[in-house]
């Protein structure tokens, strides 16, 4: 299948390489490339796989996407949701990682595990618990703070409530990533700053933070990709409500595909979202590249 090139020596190594590579190619073809191709073709059709409907529509689905007020509103919600969550994820993650990294803090492994725990807890479980905590009558949040707020059904607080839950669940990921980044920093640069009499803030501002930029970029890009696809917390906590106040772009896709079985329109929405995600990711790389 593949010609012998250079470093592999034995025949068995070459066979193993070919098997592994072929398996990966087959895997990605079956579970990624072909489904994406089918979805792309489906986006030009009226498509309900359960009733067997598959009728060519041309660009009708895309036209509907770009004229839909709900999609526009959901994109704005997605933008607000993503920006706020990413800012807090990166800010809290970096701050807490730096605090744990500090020589003043003991039991580093304990803190790292505690902050990472919500990350490994399933989103469905976390969303249900927080939904209960937000209950206007018996929820702990109103009881602790002595409030009378219907958090998830008030259009002014519903998205904020979901954002707070998402930040709580996800910032631990950034903590662990930044700690990995901090431990891999070159110690000579930090020692040099220390010898030169730099303050802690100056060391962070001019040495640590710039050296952490690749990790920051990584956290930001993975966050963009993941938050543009966020819908589970919306499904569990608000179902997009009240009305359509908390609709996110991915929630519409879920709603169209798996509630209304309108797979054609859902595929068109998915491709628009895919392009938007790719553009944001490319922009992040560009900004980072220019600064470097």
């Amino acid at each position, binding site marked *: 299948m593949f010609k012998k090139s250079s470093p592999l020596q034995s025949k068995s190594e070459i066979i193993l390489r070919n098997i592994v590579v072929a398996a990966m190619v087959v895997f990605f073809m079956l579970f990624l490339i072909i489904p994406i191709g089918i979805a792309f073709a489906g986006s030009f059709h*009226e498509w309900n796989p359960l*009733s067997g409907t598959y*009728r060519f529509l041309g660009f009708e689905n895309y036209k509907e996407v770009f004229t839909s007020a709900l999609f526009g509103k959901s994109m704005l919600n997605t933008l607000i949701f993503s920006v706020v969550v990413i800012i807090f994820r990166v800010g809290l993650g970096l701050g807490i990682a730096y605090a744990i990294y500090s020589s003043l803090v003991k039991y580093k492994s304990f803190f790292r595990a505690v902050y990472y725990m919500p990350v490994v807890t399933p989103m469905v479980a976390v969303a249900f618990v927080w939904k209960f905590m937000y209950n*206007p009558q018996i929820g702990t949040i109103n009881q602790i703070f002595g409030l009378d707020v*219907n958090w998830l*059904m008030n259009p002014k607080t519903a998205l904020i409530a979901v954002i707070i839950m998402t930040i709580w669940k996800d910032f631990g990921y950034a903590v662990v990533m930044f700690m990995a980044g901090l431990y891999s920093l070159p110690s000579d640069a930090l020692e040099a700053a220390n010898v030169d009499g730099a303050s802690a803030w100056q060391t962070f501002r001019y040495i640590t933070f710039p050296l952490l930029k690749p990790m920051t970029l990584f956290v930001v890009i993975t966050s963009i990709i993941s938050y543009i696809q966020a819908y589970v917390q919306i499904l569990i906590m608000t179902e997009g409500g009240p*009305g359509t106040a908390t609709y996110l772009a991915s929630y519409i896709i879920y709603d169209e595909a798996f509630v209304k079985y309108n797979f054609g329109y859902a595929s068109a929405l998915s491709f628009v979202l895919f392009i938007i995600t790719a553009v944001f990711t490319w922009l992040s790389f560009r900004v980072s590249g220019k600064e470097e």
Partner: protein
Amino acid sequence: MKKKWIAAMMAAAIAFTGLAGCGSKDSNGGGQGGNSEDSPKVEAPTEPFGDTVKYDPSVEINEGKDITVELWEWGSDDLFQQIIDGYTAMHPNVTIKLVNNPWEDYWTKLPLALDGANGPALFNVHNSYHENLINYLAPLEIPVEDLEADFTGVAAHLIDDKVYYIDYGMMTGTVYYNKDMWETAGLTDADIPKTWDQMREVAKKLTIREGDSLVQAGLNFNDDFHQNYLLGLNYQLGENLFQEDGKTPNVNSESMKKVMQMLVDMYETDGVGSKDFGEKGSDSFGQGQSAMVIQWGHYYNTLNTTWSDINFGVFEIPTFDENPYAYNRYNGESTFGINKNAPADQQAVAQDFVKYFLANDDAQIAFNLAMSTFPAKKSLADDPKILENPSLAVLSEHIDHYIWPGPMPSTVETSLKKAGQDIFFNGVDIDTALNAAQEEIIRDMKSSAFVSVENLYEFAEK
């Protein structure tokens, strides 16, 4: 030594979980046929039984040769096992394997299974998924006129003169009230309201406030106003949910606006409840915080199992005037579906099993009581066991004045829910919200084959 100890513990854990896995399979009925040694002995009838649709137990199935079919459902294993045991007692050569898939998975797995060669021959149907199932269903071999003689609502299920499933029971909304709160408010049975005006007055008496805070809601319709009020009370005012063509929704009609306005007035003018008082009206009633709710039949069993300490009564839904066009909407609980892609011998067993289910009064009563549905089988309308259930007894007088619009696509409910939330929470006016719902339903239904059967309502011409 420590490693050995850990390994031993892990081995024990694996062995235990393996055994537990086997145990759970048995206990939930998965893989059980009617011939299980644990199944209670069931007396097999020998004489034919049934009304017009008759079942003759002496007719051999599959020429007496052993055969296994699967029956898929999403809950109530004991209920299904009971009827399977009854059937297999007559036909010991038949094994019916009960397969339970939870509701969330059922509607994803079932169409895929039916599309393949090894799908279940029998499966439980919910008519809200009609459009996704109809292409996989085999028509019943029982003559339509026989079905019509025994069951109400059969005509609504006719497709090209064939019937693929019918309703064994009709579910609708009734008012559940907390008897203790009723008594504390000084109300008696004579105060049970017949009209919405009376209902509002009673709800006011049942409401308790401490200062500005609501302590006890007289009536609570949070989270279910669309199902239990908007999609049904329109009939009381003489308007259908769909226009004459049977396809165009009618949710921005004058009657719908009037119902919506009444709901807003009950909360905002009468103050008998609040959009923020309890996430769900049904839960609030069960938790003893609300005095009245309108709920569908299944709620009767929910109260008896989940909130058994609530002392509740039931009365029929009030009306706007004494002689309404109809009282409310109902939805049918469907008989089993038969997989048209199953092998011919399995389909023959499935056809026979459905006939047995329809002819068997005990099975009909058991299923209707379990689901709290009013029997569609005409001969059971006055059955004492049915009328012992208060949520069914209150329906008996006017059950023919309830309308089934057909298997409506889910967008009708979800769009009206959004409209109601827009009105209550987002400050959108009623006209705008209902117009938006109308547009959304039209958009979502543009490729739907759904046609309303409201025109088949017995009193439609009146």
